[in-house]
């Protein structure tokens, strides 16, 4: 969070990262009782985080931004082993975090801490502020030695008072209970608790999302000051892009368990590469008069379920720039319609009853009428040439209720590179995982592709 932001990207290179994450995965398997497993054919997994890699440099603030369910909070908690990773590697200053045993993990906890989102749930309501702040010291039996004239308890309490003042509260409030404080004050206490062990690295999991804007600004300024004072490294998890822009040196954008773009803050905000980042930035309403009446082209639809994510590029089902095959000439909106149609056929989500109803044919024999109605419902404009012929053949198959063949016909002609190959982040300071940009060698990725199906 150095205020001279332009220094950040260069500073990121050449230094040893504090934290380095490689291909981290976190899948949740639905907790089944033995009866469920008796009845269910296969266990479903939720791919909350699906192979992400990034580094965090000493003293920087890396932002992890994305919409709800993209896996950003899971990432934060998995980094600190509050959840067990499914696969991947995490290195903290050269130590293998995932391989740590109990004692090593306890030692690791002194160096890496976390601040949570909800100021009302993050403090134990049955403890006084003093108890809350002293608890970390008790757990680690700190300080190891105390001056002879003072007891350990006194030393700890002094330290708690000191940190309470450093986060902007008064030491006199130490014996109060959490409910006597406002949301912003409670968030300050949560920060003080994380600082008590004097960590080097803090995961800030949506630390200001639950706060009102005026209080949010206070806490952001505090975080800024503390970073300077203690030389902290932050992983700042948030969904609010304005806040991220304000506080972060570099930003990683997540979508459905993947990092889609990573770069220095100003680069990423001024020149977003990934279509998702572009859409995201475009969607944010700014508190400025220029915003009045601005109409954004929002992304269509909802984020797909992480239980069954799309193959290839996770974003392709909503992407406004899906890449058609090289030999197919088709405009983007029509291509989107064709792709949506195919997705629905493939996921068995296409109900032809209404179309037949509109075609006014109970016997389902009037195919031309069916195709006419179908086009009216699914295609805004006409198609032409070979595209038209392919769609026609697919509709014929649909009219005969042969969904598999229809999908097959469409797939043959319209299959996109976006659905076949999962794009990865390139090297460099501002990579984007998107086929619109140069991707590494194909052979490398082909090996990875089957895992997505």
């Amino acid at each position: 969070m150095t205020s001279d932001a332009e220094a950040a990207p260069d500073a990121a290179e050449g230094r040893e990262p504090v934290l380095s994450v490689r291909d981290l995965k976190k899948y949740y398997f639905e907790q089944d009782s033995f009866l469920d497993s008796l009845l269910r054919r296969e266990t479903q997994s939720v791919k909350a985080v699906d192979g992400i890699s990034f580094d965090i440099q000493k003293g920087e603030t890396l932002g992890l931004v994305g919409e709800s369910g993209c896996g950003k909070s899971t990432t934060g908690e998995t980094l600190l082993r509050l959840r067990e990773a499914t696969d991947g590697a995490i290195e903290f200053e050269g130590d293998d975090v995932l391989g740590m045993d109990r004692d090593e993990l306890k030692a690791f906890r002194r160096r890496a801490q976390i601040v949570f989102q909800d100021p009302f749930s993050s403090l134990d309501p049955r403890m006084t502020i003093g108890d809350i702040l002293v608890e970390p010291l008790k757990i680690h039996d700190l300080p190891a030695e105390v001056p002879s004239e003072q007891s350990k308890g006194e030393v700890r309490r002094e330290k708690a008072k000191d940190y309470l003042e450093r986060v902007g509260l008064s030491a006199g409030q130490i014996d109060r209970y959490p409910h006597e404080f406002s949301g912003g004050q409670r968030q300050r206490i949560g920060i003080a608790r994380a600082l008590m062990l004097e960590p080097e690295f803090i995961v800030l999991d949506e630390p200001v999302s639950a706060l009102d804007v005026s209080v949010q600004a206070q806490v952001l300024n505090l975080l800024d000051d503390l970073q300077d004072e203690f030389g902290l490294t932050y992983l700042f998890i948030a969904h609010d892009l304005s806040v991220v822009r304000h506080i972060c040196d570099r930003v990683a954008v997540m979508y459905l368990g993947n990092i889609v773009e990573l770069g220095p803050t100003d680069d990423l905000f001024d020149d977003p590469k990934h279509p998702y980042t572009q859409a995201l930035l475009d969607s944010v309403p700014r508190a400025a008069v220029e915003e009045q009446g601005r109409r954004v082209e929002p992304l269509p639809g909802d984020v797909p379920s992480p239980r069954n994510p799309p193959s290839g590029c996770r974003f392709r089902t909503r992407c406004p720039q899906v890449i058609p095959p090289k030999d197919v000439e088709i405009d983007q909106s029509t291509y989107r319609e064709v792709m949506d149609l195919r997705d629905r056929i493939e996921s068995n989500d296409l109900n032809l009853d209404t179309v037949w109803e509109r075609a006014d044919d109970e016997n389902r024999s009037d195919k031309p009428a069916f195709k006419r109605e179908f086009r009216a419902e699914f295609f805004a404009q006409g198609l032409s040439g070979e595209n038209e012929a392919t769609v026609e053949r697919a509709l014929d198959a649909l009219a005969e209720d042969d969904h598999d063949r229809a999908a097959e016909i469409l797939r043959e002609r319209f299959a996109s590179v976006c659905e076949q190959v999962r794009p990865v982040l390139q090297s460099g300071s501002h990579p984007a995982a998107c086929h619109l940009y140069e991707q590494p060698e194909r052979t490398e990725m082909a090996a990875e592709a089957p895992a997505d199906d």
Partner: protein
Amino acid sequence: MSLSRFLLKRSLHGLFVVWGVITVVFGLRVIAPGDPANVLLPPNVDPEVRQQVIRELGLNEPLYVQYFEFVAGIPTGDLGLSLTTRTPVAARVLAKLPATLELAVAATVVAVIIAIPLGVISATRRHDPADYGATVFSLLGISTPNFWLGVMLIILFAVQLDMFPTSRRPVGFDTIVAQALALQFGSAWDALTTWLWHITLPAITLGTYFTALITRLTRSGMLDELGKTYVRASRAKGLPETLVRYKHVLRNTLIPVITVVGLQLGTLIGGAVITEAVFAWPGLGSLIINSFNARDWPVLQGSLIVVGAGFVVTNILVDAFYAYLNPQVTYD
């Protein structure tokens, strides 16, 4: 998950619970002190005869063989022989079952008919005399031991006022149905009134706790439900208050009520046992107490298994109704 799948899952689960019940019941007999042969035989009997009886009962077999035979017999309806009467346990239990079912069903019906409207009135007219009345009633109801209530009802209505009989069940509901089916409506009517006359006090005795409990649950559940946002949203879209209350709120109130009622069915059956003891009602409860006093273990075991299985079956029905009211359960 579809509804049928949900019910399949619940049934499998029920089967598991029944197995558990059978195992626990078998275990009870194993850890029980004393020798079943002693129940059958006079104390100083010839050891030869004694051994023969033990063989007959299968008690010389290893425990796992006994267990296996015990479990294997149950699906075929074989619950063993009564030690006292030497007749099949299953027959004895089945003979007593209708009386208990009549009592339990009568009590439940009375409870539901009284309790739900009472709870609704209490919740929608807070701080009204009706609310206080319902609150006092439900407090008394859940605090009164039903056997004592039965004794008091007998003293007041049977002994002092002579309005109802003190006990017994001269006619069963099956008789009424049989007569009605045989088109003997006159005698069916007589039988019905006799039946009603005899079942009134036991049903009140057994039903009071339940009525009170459901009233309480309905009241508190409805108050909770009325505070939810969708109630406000329903008002915002212009729905009349009656529609909001009864179509939306009451239905959602019943969902948790049903869960608790399902859990409390055991209480109902336990209550039936003691109610039967008070009113000399010839049902499963009387059978259990009698066989307990006679140390007739096979009958006691058989009754416990039937009661447990009955609880499981009723709970599956309750779950089905629950799923019907609450679409969320079948979609998780």
